[in-house]
């Protein structure tokens, strides 16, 4: 972390200041015992072998006087001094974490998996720089993929990017039984805090979304020579306002008129299209496709029935 001091130059600087700064840096890195600190100080040319440990104790007191909270070196800490808090650390307030959370929530569902991994790494890095344990945990809590195996995500993403056909052993959410599927992969997506492989089941001829945590194993991967792909559900709808949510990457505004925004959306399957349209509530009027419109109406009627009952 620090460069070795040149003894001839030490006259122009405050040697005790040098020791304090180095000590601060060393304790930021890790808890240290007096022996360790002395050895490192000697290596850095800022202390002589013959000096007593009292010098280091005074340096520790100095840091404490500056507002550093350093726990006593005891058996409990393996006789190491632990820097609990210090004024040179990045301080993030709870308010700031809340706003960061709000902001990230706005974008995380629109963000691709690779970028989400990068966000996670950023939050973890920031967590590593703050001292307050609650704030640290809040930052780690922001990581969307924290409960996932990142290596697996990277592996699946590679398959999806190459549009491989995967033979997957999958635990079906309906039956909880393991089933073997052959899926032409299209993309790895993040939805409702879960990661899915979007693809086309080439045996059932269905667009599928496989929750990666339900994947038991991938037994083979091959090229998609026959260009299997799912047919997207194309919709047109009017959105009166954006109070409910922003648009997804698969939706675009075609025009704005007195009724609101005319939007074209493309969804992986009918289920997702339905979910999306319904989620807008009364702000949305689906125009196309007609059959989906009918299904939406039917569904809404059924929903209404529930409340009528």
């Amino acid at each position, binding site marked *: 972390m620090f460069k070795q001091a040149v003894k001839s130059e030490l006259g122009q*600087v405050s040697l005790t*200041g040098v020791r304090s700064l*180095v000590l601060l*840096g060393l304790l930021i890195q890790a808890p240290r015992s007096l022996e360790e600190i002395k050895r490192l100080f000697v290596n850095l040319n800022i202390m002589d072998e013959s000096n007593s440990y009292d010098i280091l104790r005074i340096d520790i007191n100095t840091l*404490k006087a500056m507002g550093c909270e350093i726990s006593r070196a005891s058996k409990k800490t393996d006789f190491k001094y632990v820097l609990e808090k210090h004024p040179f650390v990045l301080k993030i307030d709870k308010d*700031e974490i809340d706003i*960061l959370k709000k902001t990230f929530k*706005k974008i995380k569902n629109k963000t691709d998996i690779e970028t989400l991994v990068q966000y996670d790494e*950023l939050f973890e*890095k920031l967590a590593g720089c703050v001292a307050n344990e609650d704030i640290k945990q809040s930052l780690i809590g922001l990581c969307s993929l924290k409960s996932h195996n990142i290596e697996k995500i990277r592996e699946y993403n590679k398959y999806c990017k190459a549009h491989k056909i995967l033979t997957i052993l999958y635990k079906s959410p309906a039956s909880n039984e393991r089933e073997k599927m052959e899926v032409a992969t299209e993309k790895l997506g993040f939805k409702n805090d879960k990661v899915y492989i979007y693809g086309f089941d080439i045996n059932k001829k269905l667009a599928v979304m496989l929750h990666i945590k339900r994947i038991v194993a991938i037994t083979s991967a091959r090229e998609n020579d026959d260009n299997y792909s799912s047919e997207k559900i194309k919709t047109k709808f009017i959105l009166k306002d954006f109070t409910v949510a922003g648009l997804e990457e698969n939706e675009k505004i075609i025009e704005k008129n007195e009724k609101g925004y005319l939007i074209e959306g493309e969804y992986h399957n009918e289920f997702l299209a339905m979910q999306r349209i319904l989620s807008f509530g009364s702000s949305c009027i689906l125009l196309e496709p007609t059959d989906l419109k009918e299904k939406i109406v039917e569904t809404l009627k059924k929903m209404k029935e529930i409340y009528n009952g």
Partner: protein
Amino acid sequence: MASKVSLKKNLSSMQVLKTLKLLMEGDYTMQEIVDKLNTKEDDVIFNNSVISKYINTCRSLGFDIPKIHNKYYIATLPFGINISDVETDLIKTLYNTAKNELSSNCFKVFDGLVKKINRYANKKITRVDKDTYQFACEIFEQAIKRRRKINLLFKNNIKMDCIPLSIVYTENKTFFKVYNKRERMIDWNRLSGIEILQESYKYPYKNQQIVVYALKNKLAQRYELRENEELKSFEDGIKVIINKDEPQEELFSRLLRYDTDCEIMSPKFYRDDMKQLIEDTLANYGA
């Protein structure tokens, strides 16, 4: 009763740490550092000489604290956060989202958070002078490579956020070619510092500045085109010349010499700049 050692602390060390802490809170001049630190003390204990020593103490350990515009900047801390370009872009996306989609109060909080992170993030900032000239060029080239905007700090205390384009070497001078509303050639002698900003730029900028000017009378007859010039037309004794990529200051200096025999035709901002230059020059004479 506590032992003597357990109560003893080192005052000089504390002063070094106080100096560092203050610099981590903001960029200050020597006088500001002295004043700010002394206000918290019972006696006047900080002065220019000790502050210099304390800053040198930090520097001796690898803290990069350049002095630019008479202000001390903490560029890198041995325990600072290294934010990569990718992470910078992520923060920028969050920042823009907060700005565009949250209330102004929320954005204010977010803005404060980003500023805090920036203070702890290790930065690329350097003083520009004869000793640091090479490093300044390296920083400039690094910014081009990383497609990051830069902040130029001029000796006259002006700051300019701009896009770095290239370094232009002429016989006697070195210019930093940048884009800020238009392309500009900045003589490095006018600078006191360069900082790579976190903001990236995406648009491809045309690197070449084309200036068209006309010469008339005898000058038109005898004028010999330079390497970076071509003749657009020569009619009715008026020679129209296309000049490419000549540093603006040098070109202006040359064209001023041609007085009324020369007129810049385009681009418009070059005409405006020349007009301004002439007016400023006139103002020197109270005209």
